[in-house]
């Protein structure tokens, strides 16, 4: 799953640690979600979207099929 967390975070000048503190999760969790290494639960995804004042579909969006295929090949 792709996301715009890095952009939204940069717009607000928030560090990963600051975002993690606001969400009540570890900095590693924010980093993993941001880099697409971990798909967040619905609760965490909604919490992130709410924190950024966005709709969830404006923050998270599915990978295109070709992206998934490329990732699997790599």
């Amino acid at each position, binding site marked *: 799953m792709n996301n715009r967390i890095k952009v939204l975070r940069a717009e607000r000048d928030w560090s990963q640690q600051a975002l993690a503190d606001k969400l*009540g*999760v*570890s900095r*590693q*969790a924010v*980093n*993993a*979600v941001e*880099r697409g290494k971990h798909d967040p*639960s619905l609760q965490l995804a909604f919490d992130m979207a709410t924190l950024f004042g966005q709709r969830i579909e404006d923050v998270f969006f599915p990978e295109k099929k070709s992206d998934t295929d490329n990732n699997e090949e790599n």
Partner: protein
Amino acid sequence: MNKSEQETKFMKRFIGSMVVFLLLIAVQSFSLELLDMPTWLQVVVTILPVTPLICAFFAYKARYKALDEYMKALTGEAFLWMIGILCFSSFIYGMLAMKFSLPSVNLALVMPVVFGGHGLILQLLIWKDNE
């Protein structure tokens, strides 16, 4: 209770358990060497140091429940790796022991190896996701 308070509480309980463990090891060693005790009491004194380790395990379990979803997933994966390594290495050892004469391994080493190895693998998984 916030994260840092939970972490502090866990560290206090964990370090406390380790201190009690070391004290009980000393009690065990001295009492078995110096005192003339019935067999049942020797058994009790011998396994007494396990008690604080059980307390440490429950402290770790409480800490696990307080982790966020990502750290829970990584912790689970690290345990899966550690159980896999332990099972395969013990199976290989057992297979070899059926055919060859091998040095004996003290089973008391299994627990510290598992928990130490788990911590190491967890750090490697975190590092891998952050590289």
